[in-house]
């Protein structure tokens, strides 16, 4: 009963991009205290379990990565929606999620009793290698010109180093005068900026529905059939999900990329990946739900949360009077199994509900996008603001969004950039730490050191990485994660490359000025490599003719030249929303934005304009009120005290 309540809550929170499990759990936490343990557990587990299921809606329908677990789903899911096959993509995703979740729970049932030594076998070198394996997926997602993909990933890594260094706390590309940058950019903002904004802007410019045909092609039954046809793939990706989930400290951010890379590498016909291959949805979705089961292992047996939502979950457990840790497995095995099987049941309910609704929700893709766009801007601004609750969030979102638009336009691999960004922190920290520990072991004796860095697990992952790079480089040309893009004039791509190069130079100089070796070595190395890539690109640009693939420019293509509205005018609507927010606060700004957008751009009658705007504002305030979230305040609020939600 409470499980179903949890599932419903989880679904409604998960649909909201950028909120996810933490927000949902915080919502129920005040009520957990005093509940009987089984109901309380069911409520929380039901909520957590369906988040990676429900965030698929945003990824597939709008190209917004709902959470870190569904970044890779965007690559093929969104193109499918554009083809009018949203229902198919969704139901295939949910079927895979269901399978992954059940698989995870089954494994967990047996594994949890013997997992401890296995988990402890994954030390720093092993985790570093898995991070590198994740990075090696760049090879396959690099796009037509491999070196451009490497440069994109390098840029992502560099953007990931902005802020206070993990080891020594030196500042990189930021100052104490700009406190916002000290903590770096969050994944929510970069994910929304790189994927969502460029897509929303592009769709808005064309003024039509997401689905090109305007209708729904394949139905939800096709999706389930697709999943069944790829059962073995779903199984393999679930295994990947469980294994990566079990290792504490890695988190969910690598797992869907590894699963996606794996899916692509082992597929026979790769030509459609990136432009709508159903397997590109099944792979990552199977793995991300299996990961939740795997993620419970370190959470329960070590009491160390694998993710933010797991941390809140542990807090909830404590309220119920249980403490996760070795003693829980020993003394409260029944509670442990309640958790595990609630997870499985919640997956069944959640995925079942989602499949039933997918056809109906998929109809969103047939609505004229101009009516959808402003509400998406509303949601992503709100979601972005939740990451740091500062006006800086909105500025950062806009800046990253601009970068995303250009990466998309000039066909720099956005997945590669995002992988670089997501793994930047881990790559730097693990390599620094593993290096330090290894150094100490080598000082003791050569053998101890060698055993430490060259453990069997490390060697196996190393072999996998090398294989993945080789396969990737060989086949990258066939896979176009961004679809086919025409070539244009020389000037615009060249200018963008020069801007990127300039940023890297500044970052390089900035990193060279840091005193602490531990904080300096990573950005210096990465920016040097990326700069070399940029120089190679530059040389090629100068020598190649205008028809070379290096001058890819989406602006020259059919879609863009035919677009009803210009890039800058569309973007300035969004900029207007943000600017007004900084002056009047979010809710007032939003009201003005919705009314004027729907009236001026969409050309609706006043009655519909007012009803839709009011519905939008009411929706977002209810949502925020329930979750105890604030809205960005503006200058106005500095001077005049307004009641919530205006103030």
């Amino acid at each position: 009963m409470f499980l179903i309540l949890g599932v419903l809550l989880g679904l409604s929170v998960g649909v909201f991009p950028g909120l996810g499990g933490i927000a949902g759990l915080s919502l129920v936490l005040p009520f957990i205290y005093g509940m009987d343990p089984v109901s309380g557990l069911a409520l929380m587990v039901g909520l957590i379990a369906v988040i990676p299921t429900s965030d698929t809606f945003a990824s597939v329908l709008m190209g917004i990565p709902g959470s870190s677990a569904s970044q890779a789903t965007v690559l093929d899911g969104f193109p499918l929606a554009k083809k009018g096959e949203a229902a198919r993509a969704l139901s295939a995703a949910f079927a895979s999620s269901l399978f992954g979740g059940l698989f995870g729970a089954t494994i967990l049932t047996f594994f949890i009793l013997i997992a401890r030594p296995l988990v402890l076998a994954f030390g720093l070198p092993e985790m570093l290698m898995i991070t590198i394996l994740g990075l090696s997926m760049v090879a396959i997602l690099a796009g037509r010109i491999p070196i451009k993909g490497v440069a994109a990933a390098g840029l992502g890594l560099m953007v990931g180093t902005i802020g206070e260094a993990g080891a020594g706390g030196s500042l990189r590309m930021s100052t104490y005068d700009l406190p916002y940058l000290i903590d770096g950019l969050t994944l929510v903002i970069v994910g929304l900026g790189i994927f969502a904004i460029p897509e929303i802007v592009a769709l808005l410019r064309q003024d039509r529905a997401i689905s090109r045909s305007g209708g729904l092609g394949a139905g939800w039954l096709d999706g389930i059939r697709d999943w069944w046809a790829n059962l073995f793939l779903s199984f393999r990706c679930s295994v990947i999900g469980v294994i990566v989930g079990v290792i504490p400290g890695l988190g969910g951010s690598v797992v869907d990329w590894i699963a996606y890379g794996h899916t692509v590498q082992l597929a026979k016909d790769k030509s459609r990946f990136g432009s709508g291959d159903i397997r590109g949805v099944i792979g990552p979705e199977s793995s991300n739900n299996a990961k939740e089961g795997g993620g419970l292992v370190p959470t329960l047996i070590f009491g160390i949360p694998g993710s933010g939502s797991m941390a809140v979950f542990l807090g909830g457990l404590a309220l119920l009077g249980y403490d996760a840790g070795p003693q829980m497995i020993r003394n409260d095995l029944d509670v442990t199994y309640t958790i595990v099987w609630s997870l499985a049941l919640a997956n069944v309910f959640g995925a079942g509900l989602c499949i039933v609704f997918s056809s109906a929700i998929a109809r969103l893709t047939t609505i004229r996008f101009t009516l959808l766009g402003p509400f998406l801007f509303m949601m992503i601004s709100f979601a972005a603001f939740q990451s740091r609750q500062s006006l800086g969030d909105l500025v950062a979102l806009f800046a990253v969004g601009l970068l995303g638009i250009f990466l998309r336009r000039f066909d720099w691999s956005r997945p590669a950039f995002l992988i670089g960004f997501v793994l930047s922190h881990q790559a730097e920290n693990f390599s620094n730490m593993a290096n330090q520990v290894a150094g100490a072991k080598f000082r003791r004796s050569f053998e101890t050191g060698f055993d430490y860095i060259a453990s069997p697990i490390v060697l196996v992952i190393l072999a996998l990485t090398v294989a993945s790079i080789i396969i990737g480089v060989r086949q990258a040309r066939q896979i176009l994660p961004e679809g086919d893009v025409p070539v244009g004039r020389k000037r615009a791509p060249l200018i963008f490359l020069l801007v990127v190069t300039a940023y890297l130079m500044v970052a390089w100089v900035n990193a060279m000025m840091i005193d602490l070796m531990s904080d300096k070595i990573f950005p210096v190395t990465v920016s040097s490599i990326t700069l070399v890539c940029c120089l190679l690109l530059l040389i090629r640009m100068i020598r190649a003719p205008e028809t070379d693939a290096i001058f890819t420019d989406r602006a020259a293509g059919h879609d863009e030249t035919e677009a009803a509205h210009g890039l800058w005018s569309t973007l300035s609507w969004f900029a207007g929303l943000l600017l007004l927010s900084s002056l009047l606060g979010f809710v007032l700004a939003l009201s003005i934005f919705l009314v004027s957008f729907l009236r001026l751009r969409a050309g609706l009658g006043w009655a519909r304009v007012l009803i839709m705007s009011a519905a939008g504002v009411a929706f977002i305030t209810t949502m925020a009120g329930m979750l105890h979230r604030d809205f960005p305040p503006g200058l106005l609020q500095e001077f005049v005290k307004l009641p919530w939600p205006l103030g």
Partner: protein
Amino acid sequence: MKNIKTATCRAAASLAVMCLGATGFAAAAAAQDSLDLTGETVEFVIPFSESGGSAKWANFYAPLLSEALPGKPTVVVKYMPGAGSTKGANWFQQQEYEDGTVIFGSSGSTQFPYLLGDPRVKYEYGDWNVVLASGTGGVAYLPPDIAKKFDGDADGLKGIDFIYGSQGATRLDLVPLLAWEMLGMKVEPVFGIKGRGDGRLMFERGEASIDYQTSSAYLKGVVPLVDQGLAVPMMSWGALDADGNIVRDPTFPDMPTFKEVCEATKGCKTSGDAWSAWKAFFIAGFPAQKMVFLPKGAPDAAIATYKKAFDDVIARSDFPKLSAATLGLYPQMTGAQAKATLKLGTEVPLEAKAFVKNWLKERYGVSLK
């Protein structure tokens, strides 16, 4: 009107004291004699994320506080992480008392940047009204093979290269790092872990050869290891008695304190600059670790209401049982005791500050500029 005045107050930082008095007066005049929070939602703001010890602590108190406050308001924990907790604290500094629905929970990680003169700190503990102070302790432990060389003094540990998983030298880890150094041990911190739980994992994997945990984490995570013979406790940091002396930690009465070990170890002195610096930062980090505040300008009635609510929570018959798991057996202080703790935790002699700053710079190359 009041807000315009506040804005100008903020601009003229040098007149902060005067403004404080003025707004405090205005708020006091507006408040009723006693606080009734029926139908209200109290926001318990902590400057940390949902993981971590402060979240646990706040979520432990929130439902209890909700029952104890007059009118039984809903108490929600609100997370405001960022900039090593200075962001949330800076935000709280700008709040004025309104109706008693905003409280703030700070921790040792908020006090350390304040004590060390971190440039990001724009808050002043003196402006806030403390209503609860929670203490804790900490235990250092060793792997069994190395523990054989430890017999109450650290003389046998001097030739060993220790590795320690650390969150950063300017955080709470400053206390153990300085303690080990005073004992003459060579401990190489590996910076960059995300929480003490990760440090314990490194220890369990054999990558780290020394570790420490705060009391509740030690009870939960390390005692099972000790039972299985995988870890051996070395010393506790100790606890403070009423006169401000370091005595044995009541949670771990059988464990020697760092003070005892230091006295037994050659070259380690329990007096002088290093010792007083260590002691000052130990107090800020452990016995005075977590506190709950009302914003500046809170009237006495509101302070008294919250004091009584926390007193009632602590007086519950099931409180010892509830708190043992989450908070450990440490004093939960209100009223004058809490004020005294606040003073201990936020007022550190200048020499101690200078010593630690210098040590951070020389030893780890860390400067807070």
